[in-house]
C-alpha cells in the first residue's frame, strides 16, 4: 500500500546539484525505517525552479522541499514521513516577506505561471508511458486519427500557433504547405538542436515529457501524409537522448508508433538523429543536411523544406516547444489555445530565466506578459540589491530589452519593433555591472566560431566586426568605428545566406541603438563605464585606506605592487596586467578600480 509519493526533480540542473545522491539517501532511509513499501520515490522531469534544486515534493501533502542535500535528505524520511512533522529548514522562504512556503502553490515563482507546454514536466515520471496516458496522453492522437487531415490543419490555423523556435512563422501554414506539396515520401522533423546558449526549454520537454513530442509528430505525420519522422537532438544533451530513445521504444511497444496505429491503417515511426556540435544546424535547411549525414551547411530559401527538404522530399520541420503545444490544441480546440496570450501571438511561451536574477529556471507564461512581471515578480528581482539594466533575448540572433520597456507586453511582434527577437526563449538578465559592449562582443564571438563558412558576408563580415569590437574593448577604438560597425552590420544582414548570418549583427546593432554612450566611452574616453573591459581599467591604491598588510603585493602575479610592511603600497601602472588579483585580495577596500 502506497501512502506517500516522493517526487524528486531529475532535471538537468537538479542532477548537477546532486539529485542522484539525494535520491539514494531517501531510498536508503526509507529502507532503514522499513517503509520502502509504503512510500514511492519517483524521478520526474524538470520542475523549473533550477536554483532551488535538488527539489523533493512529498505527496499527498504537496510539501515542497528545496536545496535538499545528502546531509539533510534523511530528515524528509525521519521527520516528515515517520513522525509527520514538516521539515521547516527545507522549506522555501520568500525573501520579501520572510514567510515559509509549504507547497509550490505558495511560491510566486510558480503561481504566476500558466503551464501548458510544461504541464507534465515535473509532474510525471518521464519513463512511464502510463502516467503520460493518465494525463490524457495519446488521446489527441486518437482524436486526430478520426478527423480528416484538412480538419486538423484547420484547427491549427485557427489556433494561431506560431513557431516557437524563433521566427514565429504560423505553424498551420507550414503544415498546409507540407500537406499540399507534391512528392513522396514526406518527412516530419523535430528540431531539438537548441543552440541558443542560455535556452534550455526544449531540453526540459525532451527529458521531462518525451511522449508529448512523439504524439505530436505522429499527428503531424497523419496530417501531412508522412510515415517517417526524425528528431534531431544536440549531442550536448545525453539525458534527453536517452529518455527520448526509451520513450520511442515504449511508444512502439504500445502501438503508438509502427504499423496501423490504433487500428487505423496509419503507419508512422520516429528515429533519433544526434547532432555533433554545430550551432548552424539549428537553421532548418542546415539541420536537414545534417540528418542526411552531411556537413550542416544551409541553403537558400526558397525552396522551403515543405517543398524540398530531406532528400529533396517535402518535409515538415517544427521546433520542440511548438510540437509540445499540438496535442493539447487537438484535444481542447483552437478557442482554448487562444484563451491566453495576445491576439497576434496566442498561447504561452516558455522562457529560460538566467543571468543576474534571483530565481533562475524555466517559466511558462502567457504571451504578452511584461518583462517586469518576468524579472521582478516571477524572477524575484536582481540579487545583491543591484539595478536592472537590460534583458537579452534571442541569444546570438537577438538583442536587448532595456529598462524603459519593462512594462511592454512581450510577444513575437513587440520585441521585433525594438530590434530584438523572441528567439527560442532564452532570457538573460543583465544588471548594472554588465558592459553592453562586452556582451555584444561575446555574442559576436559566438557567431564567428559558429559560422559555417559557406557564404562570405557571414564568414568574413562577422570576423571583421569582431576585430573592431575587440579593438574597442582593448582601448584601441577609433573615431568612426560605430559608423563602420553599423554599415558592415547592414551589409551582413542583407546579404548572408541563412538566418545565422542575417541575424548575427543584431546584438551589436541593438546595443548601439540603446547604449551608444557606452560605445562612445570605450572609443573616445578609453573607459568602460561598467568596469568590465580589462584593458580599460586602472587599479590604484587609496593611500588613506591602505594599512600595509602586503596581501595585494603577495597576490600580484607580475610583482607590480611595491611597499613595505605597514606602509602604503603603490601599483606600478607600467607593469600592471589588470588581472584584478589585488582587488580581490584587499580586505580594506583600498584598491580602486576605475
Amino acid at each position, binding site marked *: 500500500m502506497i501512502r*506517500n509519493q516522493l517526487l524528486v526533480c531529475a532535471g538537468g540542473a537538479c542532477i548537477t546539484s546532486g539529485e542522484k545522491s539525494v535520491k539514494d539517501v531517501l531510498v536508503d532511509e526509507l529502507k532503514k525505517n522499513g517503509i520502502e513499501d*509504503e512510500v514511492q520515490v519517483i524521478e520526474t522531469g524538470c520542475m523549473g525552479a533550477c536554483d532551488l534544486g535538488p527539489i523533493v515534493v512529498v505527496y499527498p501533502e504537496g510539501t515542497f522541499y528545496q536545496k535538499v542535500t545528502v546531509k539533510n535528505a534523511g530528515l524528509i524520511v525521519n521527520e516528515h514521513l515517520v513522525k509527520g512533522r514538516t521539515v521547516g529548514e527545507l522549506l522555501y522562504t520568500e525573501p520579501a516577506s520572510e514567510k515559509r512556503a509549504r507547497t509550490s502553490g505558495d511560491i510566486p515563482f510558480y503561481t504566476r505561471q500558466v503551464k501548458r507546454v510544461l504541464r507534465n514536466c515535473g509532474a510525471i515520471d518521464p519513463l512511464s508511458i502510463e502516467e503520460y*496516458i493518465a494525463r490524457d496522453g495519446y488521446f489527441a492522437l486518437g482524436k486526430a486519427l478520426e478527423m480528416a487531415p484538412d480538419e486538423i490543419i484547420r484547427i491549427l490555423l485557427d489556433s494561431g500557433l506560431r513557431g516557437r523556435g524563433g521566427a514565429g512563422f504560423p505553424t498551420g501554414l507550414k503544415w498546409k504547405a507540407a500537406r499540399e506539396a507534391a512528392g513522396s515520401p514526406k518527412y516530419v522533423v523535430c528540431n531539438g538542436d537548441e543552440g541558443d546558449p542560455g535556452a534550455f526549454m526544449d531540453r526540459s520537454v525532451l527529458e521531462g515529457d518525451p511522449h508529448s513530442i512523439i504524439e505530436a509528430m505522429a499527428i503531424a505525420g497523419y496530417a501531412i501524409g508522412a510515415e517517417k519522422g526524425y528528431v534531431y537532438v544536440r549531442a550536448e544533451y545525453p539525458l534527453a537522448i536517452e529518455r527520448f530513445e526509451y520513450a520511442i521504444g515504449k511508444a512502439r511497444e504500445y*502501438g503508438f508508433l509502427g504499423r496501423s496505429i490504433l*487500428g487505423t491503417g496509419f503507419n508512422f515511426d520516429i528515429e533519433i538523429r544526434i547532432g555533433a556540435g554545430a550551432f548552424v544546424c539549428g537553421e532548418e535547411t542546415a539541420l536537414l543536411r545534417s540528418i542526411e549525414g552531411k556537413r550542416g551547411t544551409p541553403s537558400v530559401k526558397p525552396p522551403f523544406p515543405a517543398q524540398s527538404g530531406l532528400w529533396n522530399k517535402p518535409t515538415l520541420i517544427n521546433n520542440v516547444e511548438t510540437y509540445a503545444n499540438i496535442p493539447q490544441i487537438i484535444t481542447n480546440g483552437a478557442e482554448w489555445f487562444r484563451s491566453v496570450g495576445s491576439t497576434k501571438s496566442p498561447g504561452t511561451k516558455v522562457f529560460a530565466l538566467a543571468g543576474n536574477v534571483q530565481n533562475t529556471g524555466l517559466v511558462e507564461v502567457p504571451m504578452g506578459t511584461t518583462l517586469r512581471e518576468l524579472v521582478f515578480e516571477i524572477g524575484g528581482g536582481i540579487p545583491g540589491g543591484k539595478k536592472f539594466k537590460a534583458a537579452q533575448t534571442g541569444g546570438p540572433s537577438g538583442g536587448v530589452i532595456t529598462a524603459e520597456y519593462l512594462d511592454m507586453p512581450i510577444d513575437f511582434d513587440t520585441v521585433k519593433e525594438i530590434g530584438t527577437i523572441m528567439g527560442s526563449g532564452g532570457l538573460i538578465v543583465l544588471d548594472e555591472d554588465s558592459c553592453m559592449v562586452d556582451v555584444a562582443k561575446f555574442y559576436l564571438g559566438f557567431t564567428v566560431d559558429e559560422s559555417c563558412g559557406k557564404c562570405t558576408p557571414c564568414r568574413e563580415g562577422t570576423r571583421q566586426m569582431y576585430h573592431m569590437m575587440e579593438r574597442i574593448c582593448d582601448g584601441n577604438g577609433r573615431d568612426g568605428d560605430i559608423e563602420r560597425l553599423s554599415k558592415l552590420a547592414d551589409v551582413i544582414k542583407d546579404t548572408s545566406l541563412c538566418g545565422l548570418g542575417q541575424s548575427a549583427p543584431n546584438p551589436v546593432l541593438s546595443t548601439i541603438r540603446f547604449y551608444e554612450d557606452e560605445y562612445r566611452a570605450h572609443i573616445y574616453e578609453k573607459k568602460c563605464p561598467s568596469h568590465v573591459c580589462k584593458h580599460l581599467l586602472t587599479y590604484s591604491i587609496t593611500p588613506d585606506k591602505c594599512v600595509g598588510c602586503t596581501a595585494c603585493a603577495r597576490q600580484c602575479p607580475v610583482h607590480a605592487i611595491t611597499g613595505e610592511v605597514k606602509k602604503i603600497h603603490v601599483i606600478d601602472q607600467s607593469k600592471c596586467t589588470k588581472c584584478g588579483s589585488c582587488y580581490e585580495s584587499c580586505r580594506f577596500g583600498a584598491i580602486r578600480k576605475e
Partner: protein
Amino acid sequence: MKSLEELKRIKEQTLKEMDLRQAKERGKVVVAMGTCGIAAGAKDALIAIIDELEKADIHDVKVVQSGCMGLCDKEPTVEVSMKDQPAVMYGDVNDVNARRIVREHVQGGNVVADLVVKRENI
C-alpha cells in the same frame, strides 16, 4: 494498443496509482504520527484508513500525517475535516475504529460519537 477503449482503461488504472498527486477537494484526514502516536499504533490506523478509502473508491479525500497533536493518552488520534464542516478529532483509533471512521464519517457524513475527543466549535 488497438483502440481508444484500451487507452481509456490504461488511463483509469494509472490515475489510481497517481492518486496521491491529484488535488483533493472534499476533505482531509490527518493522522497524528508523533512518537507517541506511532507507539500507540498510528501506522496501523493510517494504513487502515487508506485501505478503506480505496475500497470505497473515494479519491477526493487527502490522507496526511502530522506530528503529535498533544493528546498522548488518547493516541492514536485522527482528525477528520470534511469541506464546510467543523473538524472532528477522534481518539483511540485502532484498525477497527479507523475503518468505522471512514465508513460512518467520511462516507456516511455522520460523526462517530463514541470516539470523539474534541469537536471544533460551530
